[in-house]
């Protein structure tokens, strides 16, 4: 015990008593702890999710796993449309403005883009994001950016920007369509054709991966979740790319050669209804569509309807035979003019009274004879045959914008209309409908739905289309179909027929010409121009292909002269390409006169 005599040091007076110090200490600790507690309540009680997310987001990245868009393939697996990995090259003008001319020179040279446009973009003020080039193949973009960096340029970076390529350019562009510039999120923007009608089927579903990164590398034991992408399905077409190319070229030659306005050619497999080639002229190049007017982004073979003209007589006369109202040798007296209700009916050539058989009526394409033969039908019978042939209903092969044409009905089907329809006027059809109808005769009287999709695929509206969905229905008896084929063979006869130009040496071919007056869109009347067409199949006794050639507004002749030679080229090429041997049977010798 220290004595009271010992003086207290001055320092301890300042320190106050231990109790006081303890209390102050506790108070401070309590205050600090309350702050911690309040913060804890805020973190855990008020909005725990937000902070958990923030913590997760720190150092974790989310990567879009893009689904690869399905390819569009021809029947042999050749890609007509495929997707490749692409990049957009983007500049940050804040960094590029300084060396803009040098960088623009470099980029213009490497990417083959416009120098002045790039220069302008590299110098945009107040912007940090300017497109330099879009849809550049990934390897090229990576090379260019790496080289630019090696040369000391800064401010270029790349982002994903998928590229759709159409390696065959204009081959089947009318069917395939194209994709426009991708949307901001990189998804495709389908603008025409099959790309558009099967957009969802082709597109697939994008996936997503989220993982933690450190210094650009995935942390091995970090959190990661992955939703894999579901790639789009491939679309297999029945089109044969080489045949399609040849068809397009022949069509072009034909249309240009006859100074015509436009043309359509269809080649169909007679046994399966598969469309092997479907050409439209003029068309466009799918790999560079902006160069062509928008009105060409379609297939006229489906979207445009017209009066078929004399080719339709084939259907009328086959129905006459099938209904038992006449045979190929049935004899008709054909007058020079047939006076009917509202106006006289003429033939395309001036003649006196002719004695023609049914085969002769077809071979010489007599309107009057066809009307006389069709007079035997009971009311509504011809219409029901034409409906069975598929007129007035969409073919539904999978391309958007199809017009189903016009087949008059009810009160609109007057006697005058009945006469005219018998030889192909007063009704309108699209080219694929016509090809499918005549293919019925080629296929022993059974109509097969035409198809463009091999197998089956789902349209954006949910409909399944394709060869697996193709329906078959009997329209004519086998015998009626065979006899019609024999009659059609006479059309190509050098002496008795009107279209010897359509013959393919060595093969038996059945066909029919058509030279129809065209209805002008402007006035809704016949404007004096013609649609020349030729439809046929071969070999007659074992048909493999049905070919249809249509030339609108041909200036150098009718169906036989203009479309006939094109038909012959296409048929001959198709028969060779698929190695179809001549059947070696005797050609049709049906009499045309009596």
């Amino acid at each position: 015990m220290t004595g009271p005599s010992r003086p207290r040091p001055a320092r301890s007076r300042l320190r106050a008593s231990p109790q006081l110090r303890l209390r102050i200490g506790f108070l401070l600790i309590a205050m600090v702890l309350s702050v911690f507690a309040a913060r804890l309540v805020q973190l855990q009680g008020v909005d725990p999710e937000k902070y958990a997310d923030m913590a997760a987001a720190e150092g974790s990245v989310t990567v879009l796993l893009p689904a690869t868009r399905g390819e569009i393939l021809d029947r042999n697996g050749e890609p007509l449309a495929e997707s490749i990995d692409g990049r957009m090259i983007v500049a940050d003008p804040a960094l590029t403005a300084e060396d803009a001319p040098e960088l623009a020179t470099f980029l213009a040279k490497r990417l083959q883009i416009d120098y002045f446009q790039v220069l302008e973009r590299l110098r945009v003020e107040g912007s940090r994001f300017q497109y330099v080039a879009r849809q550049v193949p990934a390897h090229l973009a990576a090379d260019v950016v790496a080289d630019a960096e090696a040369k000391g340029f800064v401010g270029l970076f790349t982002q994903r920007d998928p590229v759709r390529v159409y390696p065959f350019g204009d081959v089947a562009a009318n069917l395939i369509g194209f994709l426009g510039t991708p949307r901001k999120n990189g998804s495709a923007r389908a603008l025409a054709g099959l790309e558009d009608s099967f957009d969802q089927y082709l597109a697939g579903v994008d996936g997503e991966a989220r993982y933690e990164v450190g210094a650009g590398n995935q942390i091995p034991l970090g959190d990661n979740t992955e939703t894999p992408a579901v790639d789009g399905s491939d679309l297999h077409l029945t089109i044969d790319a080489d045949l399609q190319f040849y068809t397009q070229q022949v069509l072009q030659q034909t249309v240009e050669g006859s100074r015509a306005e436009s043309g359509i050619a269809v080649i169909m497999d007679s046994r399966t209804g598969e469309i092997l080639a479907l050409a439209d002229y003029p068309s466009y190049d799918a790999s560079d569509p902006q160069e062509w007017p928008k009105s060409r982004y379609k297939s006229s073979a489906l979207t445009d309807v017209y009066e078929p003209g004399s080719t339709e007589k084939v259907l009328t006369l086959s129905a006459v035979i099938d209904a038992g109202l006449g045979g190929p040798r049935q004899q008709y007296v054909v007058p020079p003019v047939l006076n009917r209700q509202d106006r006289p009916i003429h033939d395309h050539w001036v003649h006196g009274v002719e004695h023609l058989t049914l085969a002769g009526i077809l071979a010489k394409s007599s309107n009057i004879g066809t009307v006389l033969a069709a007079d035997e039908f009971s009311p509504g019978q011809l219409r029901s045959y034409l409906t069975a042939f598929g007129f007035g209903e969409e073919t539904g092969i999978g391309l958007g914008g199809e017009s189903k044409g016009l087949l008059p009905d009810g009160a609109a089907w007057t006697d005058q209309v009945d006469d005219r329809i018998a030889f192909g006027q007063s009704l309108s059809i699209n080219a694929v409908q016509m090809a499918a109808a005549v293919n019925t005769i080629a296929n022993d009287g059974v109509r097969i739905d035409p198809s463009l999709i091999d197998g089956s695929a789902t349209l954006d509206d949910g409909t399944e289309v394709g060869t697996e969905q193709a329906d078959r229905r009997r329209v004519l008896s086998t015998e009626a179909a065979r006899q019609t084929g024999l009659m059609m063979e006479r059309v190509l006869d050098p002496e008795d027929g009107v279209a010897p130009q359509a013959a393919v040496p060595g093969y038996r071919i059945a066909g029919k010409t058509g030279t129809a007056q065209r209805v002008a869109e402007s006035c809704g009347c016949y404007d004096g121009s013609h649609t020349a067409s030729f439809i046929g199949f071969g070999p007659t006794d074992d048909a493999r292909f049905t070919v249809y050639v249509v030339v609108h507004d041909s200036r150098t002749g009718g169906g036989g002269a203009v479309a006939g030679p094109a038909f012959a080229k296409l048929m001959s090429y198709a028969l060779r390409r698929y190695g179809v041997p001549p059947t070696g049977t005797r050609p049709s010798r049906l009499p045309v006169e009596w």
Partner: protein
Amino acid sequence: MSNTAPQLRSRLPRIAEVAVQRARLTVVPRPRTRPRAPRVPFVTLVSVILLAGVIGLLMFNTSMQQASFRATALERQAADLTAQEEALRMELQELRDPQRVAAQAQARGMVPPTGAACVLTVGTGEISGTCAPALAGVKLPLDPPGPKRPAALDPPTVEVRADARVKVRDHGAPDRDRQR
């Protein structure tokens, strides 16, 4: 008080002696059965295990990081190679473009077959149909017509007749130059 003490003292010794005898505690001699294990090796062992564990974990982590770097690098390489493969495939497709093939074939004097056809059955060597050589001079137009020029670049053709009447056609010819 003082006279009782000797008595007590005389009585005490016997009891006390026992008690004292009992109370005198002695240190229990350490049983010298086994020598105490030296502490140093144990500590060293534990330290070594600890150290090995820590170093092992560190190395394991490092190697995983290394693997991760490698994975990233390989992924990048795979992406590059995929892009390269795509580019080559695209080039191949361009070479297989029927238009290009047809142009090359025509340049070598080949013509599309027209005229009579015959079919050779490979298995039997049988020929059906009558064979005839392809006709020379058959040509296909190989370039589709190019896009039309904009009106500004494609002024209407002006025909000047001898009588100086001016006739204006409403459009020019389609542009065939695709390379432009």
